[in-house]
């Protein structure tokens, strides 16, 4: 890991300056996120008139149209440990599993599902192991929920307006929404006889980092899931195959992937991930620990860099909003840099702890404009400005960057990130 990359996988300034984080790859019609070093393929061909010939026969495995080449964005300067979702490419709220962002600390392990076991022990009456078949035999539960790395958006926060050529993917591509299926953790904890005095549990992965986080027991009794499926099929390897912990609304790092062990205790374990990393320095010489919840956030995904609007007239401003504290109740949009705000329409379904799609029609007059979005959640929390976040947390706090983002539309239609 680069020494100056200390915010959950943010690109370093050096990498950004070197232009390796996709800026070199965007433009010229390429979707942001095209891999550097990949030579551009010739444009696929299609018949002049497809009604005059038989089409393809059915195939056992579907593929995207050859004209669609979305890519996650992977850094190339070093062995990378993250890839980012092309948010500006997506519609609706579900992230296709192969475009779901990834972040890991020891690579993606290769695990045989037949040899898989989950061990639960510590402050329990009956320490037990569960095979994958055991887990699948329990009553299942499916939930559409977002997952976001708490380092997401750090470059935008710490480099105010210095990188106008950032797409939503580069800036905030460490968030996704999926349907997650698995066993409610409380069911497993009841099976093993979790003792009432247990206040924390350790979740441990079976990757090369043997990733560990301490999780408050309250989350287990609430909505934690031991997930084995995503968007209808087994988890992708990079999402924790065959089994991961999933903690709805909480920072991604705590949803330990490739889960092999849960140990119940009456104290947190103080692992490296929850001390050296994933703590938030605050003004006044303190740092917040166990800052799990993701505060309300919204992001315009169209129009954004590298888009160029074809001319004045009607355009639909689109984006996503989410909160770890329940439901999004309102998203407002400003087209004049935050002086006036108007409500956007929220697209059904508006689910708790899940991306919500918002839209608002905009009649662009062709003059320079600054677009912003601002989310409110059911607790009454309003997505803060960068200044408000800075005042509360300091300039160089790490993680949880949910400040309002803005996009400048220039008179020629070119859109840039504007801080």
């Amino acid at each position, binding site marked *: 890991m680069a020494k100056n990359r200390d915010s959950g996988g943010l690109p370093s300034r050096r990498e950004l300056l070197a232009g390796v984080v996709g800026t070199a790859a965007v433009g010229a019609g390429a979707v942001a996120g095209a891999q550097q070093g990949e030579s551009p393929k010739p444009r696929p061909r299609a018949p002049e008139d497809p009604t005059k010939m038989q089409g393809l026969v059915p195939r056992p495995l579907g593929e995207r149209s050859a004209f669609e080449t979305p890519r996650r964005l992977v850094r190339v300067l070093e062995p990378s440990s993250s890839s980012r979702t092309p948010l500006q490419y997506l519609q609706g709220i579900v992230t296709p599993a192969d475009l779901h962002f990834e972040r890991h600390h020891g690579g993606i392990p290769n695990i045989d599902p037949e040899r898989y076991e989950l061990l639960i022990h510590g402050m329990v009456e009956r320490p037990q192991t569960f095979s994958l078949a055991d887990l699948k035999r329990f009553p299942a539960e499916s939930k559409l929920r977002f997952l976001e790395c708490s380092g997401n958006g750090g470059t935008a926060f710490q480099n105010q307006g210095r990188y106008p050529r950032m797409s939503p993917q580069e800036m905030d591509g460490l968030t996704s929404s999926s349907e997650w299926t698995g066993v409610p953790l409380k069911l497993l904890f009841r*099976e093993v006889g979790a003792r009432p005095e247990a206040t924390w549990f350790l979740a441990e992965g079976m990757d090369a980092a043997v990733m560990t986080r301490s999780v408050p027991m309250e989350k287990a009794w609430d909505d934690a899931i031991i997930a084995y499926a995503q968007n209808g099929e087994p988890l992708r390897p990079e999402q924790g195959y065959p089994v991961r912990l999933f903690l709805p609304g909480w920072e991604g790092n705590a949803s330990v992937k490739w889960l092999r062990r849960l140990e119940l205790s009456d104290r947190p374990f103080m692992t490296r991930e929850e001390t050296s990393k994933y703590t938030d320095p605050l003004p006044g010489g303190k740092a917040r620990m166990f800052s799990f919840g993701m505060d309300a956030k919204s992001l315009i995904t169209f129009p954004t860099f590298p888009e160029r609007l074809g001319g004045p007239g009607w355009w639909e401003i689109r984006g996503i909003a989410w909160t770890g504290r329940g439901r999004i109740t309102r998203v407002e949009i400003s087209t004049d840099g935050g002086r006036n705000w108007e409500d956007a329409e929220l697209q059904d379904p508006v689910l708790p702890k899940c991306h919500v799609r918002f839209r608002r029609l905009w009649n662009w007059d062709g003059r320079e404009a600054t677009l912003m979005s601002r989310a409110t959640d059911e607790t009454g929390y309003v997505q803060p400005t960068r200044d408000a976040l800075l005042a509360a947390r300091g300039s160089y706090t790490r993680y949880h960057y949910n400040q309002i983002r803005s996009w400048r539309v220039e008179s020629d239609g070119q859109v840039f990130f504007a801080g």
Partner: protein
Amino acid sequence: MAAAEDDVVPPVPPEAGRAPPRPELHPGMPGLLNEAEREALAAAREDGLADIGHLPEFGFGETASPERIAAWDIDIGPDGEGLPPGSGSVERGETLYRLQCVQCHGARGEGSQFEALAGRVPGDRFPFAEDRRYRITVGSYWPYATTLFDYIRRAMPQAAPGSLPPDDVYALTAFILQLNGILGPGDSLDAESLPRIRMPARDRFVRDDRRGGPEVR
């Protein structure tokens, strides 16, 4: 059985390979529940169990033997729980470090393109939210020395994680603490002494106070 915030926490029943008694936890440690948090947890437990009250007990899965648990139970608590027998000196740690760690973390733990491991802030201030001149390191930021043992044993060296025997991990932990000015050149570490080390930044950490609502925190 869990204790109030400012009490000595009694040990949990010993498991295989564990060595009680454990040193007490310091009172301000984030994550030790106060009375109100304890009540909230009891209520959450009741609600959670009520949610699944209509479901039978299934009895799927196998009993895990103490040996089965011991094979995976490698975590070290901030009180030293789980530390294995063994010991290692700063001197031996330096030799091991030069062989297995220096190429990535630098001769004095200054880092390369990889993480820096050593460095203190003058006066042990904690200016990280406002001043980016100082690095987040073991000496400037890590609240517990036990975390170093736990992390090195599970994840380092990067190309051979989990390969170091306890004596080596004690020695490397001791050497990195010496690089940070926390141990002297003649010191050694074992299961008794490691959890007693008080890290410079120990009391800098606070529990999350964000709860939603209108206030930005």
